C-alpha cells in the first residue's frame, strides 16, 4: 500500500479526493464538539466552568504527542525506504504538531491561572510539553537549515528518531523531578475515570482536531510537492 501511495501524482489524486471528506468530518465534529463542550456538558464540581478549557487542551495535547510519533514513523520510512513522500509528510506535519503543543501550553496556562493561581508552574507534564515544543522547533530548524532544501531531510529525520528514543527518558526524568499535574483520567488500565458526559465532547473534539490535522497535512504536503517540482524545473532550466 505504501509503495502504491508513494507515487506523488497518485498521492495528489487520492488526497484531493480525501480532502473534502476530511474537512467535512472535521467541521461537523467541531460544531458538535464545541456545542457539547460549551453548552451540553456539565460544569465540574470542583473546577466549575473552567473545565471546558479541557475540551481543547486535552485533544491538543494528544495530537501534539501523536504528531511527533507519526513524524518519527515517517522518518523511518524515509531513512529505510527512501520514499521522498515520507520526508515531505514529516515536514508537513511539523508545523501543525508544534501548533498543537503551543495550543496545549497556552490553554493550560489559561486554565492554570484561575485553578492553580498562576499562569505557569514548573510541573513535570507542563515541562515535558514545553520540551516537546522545543523538539519540534529543533526539527523545523534543521530541516530548513540547508542551502538546498532536500539536503536537510536526512539529518532532520535522524533527529526525529533520536528525539523519539529520548522522549521517554526526558519524560521519566522530568516526572521524577517534579509533578503537580493531575494524572490522566482517560487512558487508564482500569477504564476511564472521567464522567461519560465529559468524555463524549472530549472524544468528539479529538476527532475534530484529527480531521483538521489530516486536512492541513494534505494541503501542506501538496504544496511541498509542488514546490519541489518547481525547484526541479528551475534546476533543469538553468542546466539547458
Amino acid at each position, binding site marked *: 500500500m505504501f509503495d502504491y501511495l508513494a507515487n506523488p501524482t497518485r498521492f495528489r489524486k487520492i488526497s484531493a479526493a480525501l480532502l473534502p471528506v476530511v474537512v467535512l468530518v472535521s467541521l461537523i465534529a467541531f460544531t458538535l464538539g464545541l456545542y457539547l463542550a460549551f453548552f451540553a456538558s456539565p460544569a465540574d464540581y470542583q473546577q466549575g466552568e473552567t473545565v471546558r478549557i479541557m475540551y481543547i487542551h486535552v485533544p491538543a495535547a494528544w495530537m501534539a504527542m501523536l504528531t511527533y510519533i507519526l513524524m518519527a514513523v515517517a522518518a523511518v520510512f524515509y531513512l529505510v525506504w527512501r520514499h521522498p513522500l515520507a520526508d515531505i509528510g514529516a515536514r508537513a506535519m511539523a508545523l501543525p504538531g508544534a501548533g498543537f503543543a503551543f495550543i496545549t501550553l497556552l490553554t493550560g496556562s489559561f486554565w492554570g491561572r484561575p485553578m492553580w493561581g498562576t499562569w505557569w508552574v514548573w510541573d513535570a507534564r507542563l515541562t515535558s510539553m514545553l520540551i516537546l515544543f522545543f*523538539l519540534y522547533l*529543533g526539527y523545523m*530548524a534543521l530541516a530548513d*537549515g540547508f542551502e538546498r532544501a532536500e539536503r536537510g531531510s536526512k*539529518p*532532520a529525520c535522524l533527529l526525529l528518531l533520536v528525539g523519539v528514543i529520548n522522549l521517554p527518558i526526558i519524560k*521519566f*526524568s522530568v516526572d521524577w*523531578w517534579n509533578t503537580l499535574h493531575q494524572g490522566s483520567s482517560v487512558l487508564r488500565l482500569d477504564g476511564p475515570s472521567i464522567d461519560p458526559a465529559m468524555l463524549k465532547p472530549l472524544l468528539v473534539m479529538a476527532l475534530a482536531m484529527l480531521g483538521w490535522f489530516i486536512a492541513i497535512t494534505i494541503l501542506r504536503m501538496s504544496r511541498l510537492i509542488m514546490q519541489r517540482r518547481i525547484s526541479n524545473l528551475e534546476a533543469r532550466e538553468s542546466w539547458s
Partner: protein
Amino acid sequence: MRAILNPCLAVIMADIRASLRYPGDILSGLSYFIMMATLIPLGLGADQGELARIAPVMIWIAVMLASLPQMDRLFSRIAKDGVLEQMLISPTPMTMLMLAKIIAAWLIIILPLVLAAPVIGIMFGLALDRLAMMLCFLAIGGLCLVMIGAMAAALVLGSRQSGVFTAIIVLPLSMPVLIFGVAGISALQSGADMAGHMMLLGALTLILLVLSPPVTAAAIRFSEE
C-alpha cells in the same frame, strides 16, 4: 581488534595534538566558564547560603554552555581538510572512529572544565570535602553532553548557520543530564544518598553510548553524500 583500536587511538592522539597546538582555545573556553559563574553573584547578591543552594545548577549550566561552542566545531575542521572523507572510505568502522572522536572531545572539552569546576565550587561556597564525587558526576554527565553534542554537530554539518542549530538540538536532549546531575550534586551537598542519581546518570551514559556513535556516523555519511 588491533586493526580497529590503532586507528581509533590515532584519531584521539591527532585531536589532542591539534588542540594543544592552539592552547588559547582551551583557555578561552575555561575563561568563558568562569566568567559565566562570576555573573551570577553580581546579579543575585553575595548571600553565601543562597549561592551554595544554586551552585550545582550554576556549575551544570556553565558546563553545558561553555562546551556548546566547542562541540559545534567538532567536525568542521576535518570536514574542510578532507579527513572526514578519508575516515569514511577507511576500512575501520565509522562508528568506532566516531567513538574515538567522542573520547577525544571529552578529553579536550570536558576534562578542563571538570578540573576548573572546584574553583567555581569554592567561589560559591560549596563544601569541598566531597569534591571527588562532584567531579565524578561532572565527568560522567560531561560524557553524556559530549555524546549528545557529537550527534548534533554531525547533524548540522554543512548547514547555513550551525551555531544556533546545535544549541537548539543539544539543549532539549540534555535536560535529563541536567536534572540527574544537579540532583546528584545537591544530594551530595546535603549529605543525602546520591547513589541513585549516579546510577541513573550512568544508565543515561550507557544508552547514549549505544545511540550516539552510530547516529553520528550516519549523519556524517549524509553530509558527505
